[in-house]
């Protein structure tokens, strides 16, 4: 292999491979959404597109050799504190004792739970709409639908 390409791959693609995969998946989805003629294929493209973004977010929260963020001792110590005024100090102390490099960042995962729900409902709604289109036009091919509309004052 050409050494320039090899160094390019080593320096740019390997360390950031998660971004590359998300961009490639996103482009596949975008391509399908824009160019495909069949409405269901467009929706498959849309699902790939949304999944690519979910992958992007989830990969952002990953750390090397990190565990799932379940902190067992945090809650119990927290309950022992009865004095409200010293609570903030104590939680700060605990935060300091937790080694944040040992735990994956949970927030992007939680955000993506919401985004998955949004994606599922968008897909469900779009499938329902395409069902309505199929019932009234008898086809799901976009060019055939547009042909059927043409005589009736297509704008």
């Amino acid at each position, binding site marked *: 292999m050409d050494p320039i390409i090899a160094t390019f791959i080593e320096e740019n693609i390997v360390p950031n491979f998660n971004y590359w995969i998300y961009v490639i998946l996103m482009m596949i989805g*975008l391509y399908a959404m824009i160019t495909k003629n069949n409405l269901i294929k467009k929706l498959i493209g*849309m699902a790939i*597109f*949304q999944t690519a973004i979910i992958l992007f977010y989830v990969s952002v929260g990953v750390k090397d050799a990190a565990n799932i963020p379940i902190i067992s001792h945090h809650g119990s110590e927290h309950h022992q504190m009865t004095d409200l005024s010293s609570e903030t100090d104590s939680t700060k102390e605990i935060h300091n004792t937790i080694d944040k490099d040992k735990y994956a960042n949970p927030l992007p995962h939680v955000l993506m739970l919401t985004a998955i729900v949004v994606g599922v409902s968008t897909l469900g*709604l779009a499938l329902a*709409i395409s069902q*309505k289109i199929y019932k009234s036009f008898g086809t799901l091919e976009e060019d055939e*639908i547009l042909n059927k509309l043409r005589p009736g004052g297509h*704008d």
Partner: protein
Amino acid sequence: MTEHFPVLILLVPLFGALIVVLLGRERPDQCWVTSLISLGVSSLISFFTVIAVLSGKVQTLRYRMGGWPESDGYEVGIELRVDILAALVVFAVTFVGFVNTIYSKTRAGAEVRGKVPFFYALIQLLIVGLCGIVMTNDAFNLYVLIEITSLTSYALIAMGNRRAALSSFNYVIMGTIGASFYLIGVGYLYIKTGTLNIDDIRMVLEQKNLWEHQSIIVAFIFIMLGVWTKMAFFPLHGWLPNAYAYAPSMTGTFMAPLMTKVMVYVMIRVMVWIFGNEFVYSSQPMWGEIVIWMSVLAIVAGSLLALARTDIKKILTYLIVAEVGYMVGGSWLADGVGQAGAFYHILSDAAMTFCLFIAASIIVLRVGDSRVNAFDGLFRKMPLTMIGFTVGALSMIGLPPTCGFFSKWYLISAGIEAGHWGYVCALIFSSLVNAVIFFRIFERAYFGKISGVKEDHFPSDSDANPDIRIKEVPWSMLVPLFIASGSVLLLGIMNRSLFEWIQAALKMMNT
């Protein structure tokens, strides 16, 4: 009590939607009253919010959802934030929703037969989503609310005829691309700043001086592209005309004035609150130039496309595309007057688009034909409707004392101050084109011969003479039209004080 207003504005229509769905099974006739009450209460609360924010005691209402305590570092929970700008837009949204519900009294049963409860539930959820977009102070929550409004509006549009289903499908594709781009932008911001609260993002960006970083620039571009797709900024406008023209009339009258304007508000908020004027205008001077020329293109193309149409609803939808160009251009003119003018145009454009869409829907309903030819002699047959239509049309052209004149005045003077003559010319050109479009209609309506028209949807009037057959609509449609045209005039008369409030609020943020 005042501190709970932001969340009450959201909760009342949210529970209203649930009640309407439950009621719909047994008592579908009660749905209209229920949603009228819930939206009335919501708009009343937002009116008091405007007063509370204006009275000066609390300039910014903050509400922490779920009662998360104020921490010394980052904001943990989702925060609602209402200043005068948000309060005005929220009041516009809820009030238009309320008035539109009055309009839908007879139309809902006729146009979405059998789905009336779902219509009222969806429209209330749409209002919840729009108010949430305006009030939320959390960048990811903003994405979720954008998707809530999008999902409800896809469903509302698809309730129309078969053309509506097809245009709704196109809207799903475009809308998903837009919202996803926004989400990617937020992701990049999160990577660099580690927070999602809009104020905190700004704080971290300033503290760590991340302005020059590539991720921030990419985030800004992605967010802008996403928001532009959602607001139908010119090359990305493809979904809008068909979706709004073929939707059921009471859906079109609600979404046309509000959806694009709320997204313009999001754009101004992202520009001013997250990134700040210095980053947007100064760090990359080419951007402003490019975006303003794009908006010039949007204004000219929107006006010309409107001029080429003969269908009244299509004309109005293409005019929305041109108006979006006004607002984007105005907010990118690097001075406070342009931003404030664009913001004032959000309100005035909502009022006049609402007015025109109601009038056009009434006319299409009565005449049974949406082409411009159908306007022949309408001033004699439906004088009240045509008065409302005229007020909206004059505002679109820009004649005082309507609000359209003043918003154009502020935008043009901002363009002159910034020395951007292309934008000024585009605004004047669009005014002239609007004059041609609407005076063509006025001419037909005043002097046109009454031709034989199809019978209307109310065949009770058995007179054979078509001259008398077309008559005024019931009060439930005329009252909203007059409220809308009245607010066009009111916004115009109040322009000075409104503009000063907007400028003060924007200045407070920029310094």
